């Protein structure tokens, strides 16, 4: 409760962070309300309207099949934001639990768990990610799982580090002395302390995941299904536009702007949060 208040007060004082937050919320809302906001559907074929430049009936123009680009970008927000936030949450869940166990248990278990983390760091991200996405398929769940599995180690390391620090603190020692249970110590004393750095890492993981998905789309392994409730990701839209750069720049411009602005906003939000929660500007791990 208290932490939330600090964050809110802080965010209100940092105009960049505030605007970033508003922007991200607007993007999420736009994706959510896409069917209400746009008179066009995300799929279909309209031979008469192929590759129109931006104009009054199509604010962002139309694509190779005559589909309204603005609508596609709105639907794309669903995929891209879900990938961004979903991945970060999956990574957070695995990583924090892992880091907590490792840091709290200490000793040989900690040693073993950290060796596993070392191995995960040694894996070439992109390669493993592609192998995983082949295993899990090219739907949103597959990409989420694959990205989550590649990102969780960062959370594990940070959580463990924080737990080790927190363990040293007097109040944990005190709690232990009066015989508090492990669960209670973790919940009441350790978790609140690691919340700030984890929240910051979480904010930075969102743009990372969006970026990774768009790179994957560039290779042709992104998410794409124009008719399902999940649209086509921004990365896939931008990749479509890449090859039309010279003649029809609007096809790459708008999805690229969407990716860029969302990542920019998330990064600004992350910076703001870090300044608020961790004013000493503690070091970030890769």
């Amino acid at each position, binding site marked *: 409760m208290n932490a939330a208040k600090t964050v809110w007060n802080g965010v209100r004082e940092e105009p960049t962070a505030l605007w970033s937050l508003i922007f991200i919320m607007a993007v999420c809302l736009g994706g959510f309300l896409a069917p209400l906001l746009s008179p066009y559907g995300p*799929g*279909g*074929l309209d*031979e008469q309207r*192929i*590759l129109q430049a931006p104009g009054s009936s199509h604010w962002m123009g139309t694509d*190779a*099949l005559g589909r309204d680009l603005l609508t596609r970008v709105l639907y794309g927000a669903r995929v891209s934001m879900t990938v961004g936030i979903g991945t970060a949450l999956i990574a957070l869940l695995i990583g924090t639990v892992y880091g907590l166990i490792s840091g709290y248990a200490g000793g040989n278990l900690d040693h073993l768990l950290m060796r596993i983390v070392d191995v995960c760091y040694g894996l070439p991200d992109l390669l493993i990610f592609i192998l995983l996405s*082949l295993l899990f398929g*090219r739907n949103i769940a597959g990409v989420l799982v694959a990205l989550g599995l590649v990102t969780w180690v960062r959370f594990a390391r940070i959580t463990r580090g924080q737990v080790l620090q927190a363990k040293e603190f007097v109040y944990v020692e005190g709690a232990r002395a009066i015989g508090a249970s492990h669960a209670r110590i973790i919940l009441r004393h350790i978790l609140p302390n690691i919340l700030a750095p984890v929240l910051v890492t979480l904010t930075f993981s969102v743009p990372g995941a969006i970026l990774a998905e768009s790179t994957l789309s560039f290779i*042709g*392994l992104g998410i*794409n*299904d*124009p*008719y*399902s409730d999940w649209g086509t990701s921004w990365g896939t839209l931008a990749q*479509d536009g*890449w*090859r*039309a*750069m*010279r*003649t*029809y720049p609007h*096809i790459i411009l708008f999805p690229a702007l969407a990716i860029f602005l969302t990542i920019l906003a998330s990064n600004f939000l992350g910076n703001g949060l870090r300044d608020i929660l961790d004013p000493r500007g503690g070091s970030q791990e890769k």
Partner: protein
Amino acid sequence: MLKQPRKNAIPSIPALITFFLLSSCNPFSPTGDLKTFRVNLGTEPPSLDWSLATDHASFNVIANLMVGLTEFDKNLKPAAVIAKSWDILEGGRRIIFHLRDDVLWSDGKKVQAQDFEYSWKRLLNPKTASEYAYILFDILNAEEYNQGKIDSPELVGVKASDDRTLEVHLKHPVSYFLSITTFEVTYPQRQDVIEKYGSKWTEPGNIVTNGPFLLSSWKHENEIQLTANPDFFLGKPAIDKVEMFMINEKTTALAMYEQGRIDFIDNQSIPIFEKPRMAKLPGFKAVPQLRGYYYGFVTDRRPFDDVRVRKAFSMAIDRSVFPKILHGGERPATSWIPPSMQAQNPKIGLNYNPPEARRLLREAGYPDGKGFPQVTLAYNTLEDHKTVAEAVQGMWKRNLGVLVRLENQEWKVYLKKLKTDPPHIYRSGWGADYPDPDNFMKLFTSLSGNNDTRWKNPRYDQLLESAAREFDEKRRIRLYNEAQRILCEIDVPIMPLFTTTEHTVLNPRFTGLEFNSMARLFLREVRPASR
């Protein structure tokens, strides 16, 4: 360890950008000399060993390094090259090739019939593990040798009876065998060279060839250089040097052409949206390809086990849309044998007819698509395939009221899935190995490994078998017409969509380049354009 930090680095960056933006001069405009010709190969050729090569990049290099028994003339008929003539005996079971005696290898030795015998047997040798070994399976005992059922290559029906004569025994009469001898995998090879260098025999310095150009350098993943062969038996080519680049990304390759750093580009170097613009450039030429694009129905999966549903789906597609969305001069097709091939017949097939399609669907029990089960259309990941699939999905929704689910997969996963867990409808295509209808029609026989429709029709198989042995053109065409009707009108296991076209642009400073309908590039006649 530290660079001396400069405090004014920040303002200087926007200043630099502004400077770049304002400036519009062009300090250099690169143009090559007229003796060097530069093309984009697209990718590193996986192998220049013509027994192991399987792809366009490799064959396009080999086609300029080597010549074989025959080559295609302008009408895609086999014409004499190393073979000066041939006799077809025993009703087509035996062919004797008579070879010229003035064709030289690049080390000065003469090309002999033994070099062909060695090459063909090497292709068939199970130890070579050649993917194209099956192309010679019409030869007596060839398949058995490749399968390891017989050990001795002596029993295979190809033999150099002397230096100038090559004798081929076939299992049964084969009307298209001469076409096969145009294919690079049947080019001669030098036993002494291959045995001396092993798998490194294709490197510059080791390789021995007989064609218009010589391999002078091969920087892997980067560039191949060829130089004119002064001793080529048809005369030294007009250009001295060829540089072949390996630029994967089309946008980059096109930018290179527009900067004058490449002299010839094809579909490999032209993004689809740029095609209309290319068509207006000097030196542009559209080359229709012997390559068909189709959707197949998996005919044992409901509801496509009902031929009425298959017909309805085929009739609900307006094929004239494809050239509009793909921009590449695609030619809509309702039948399978591509234009300019023997027995091609555009009258065969199901035309666009939405009312009739709806009627058939209603008859099958799905009025206006009601009650139609969830079906999946699968394609492999590639921009053109995606565009086609989304357009077709839109037309089916509009004309039949059926929303088909799209699924795209990475290539190898896709191929695996077609075999193990097929979707209802799949995308596929076929480019000619040799320009004979047999090569196209054989895809859908009962035993074909490429027939993923699981459709079998004994009559179809029988028609193809007869056509393969038929030497009379009229009778052959009749057989193929009947087979095509079964395939595209009566049973409809597939719906052909279109055949492809290559957009090519040749720098107007040059002329004489030949690019054929199987996407093969021949540079031996390239010369500076006369002004």
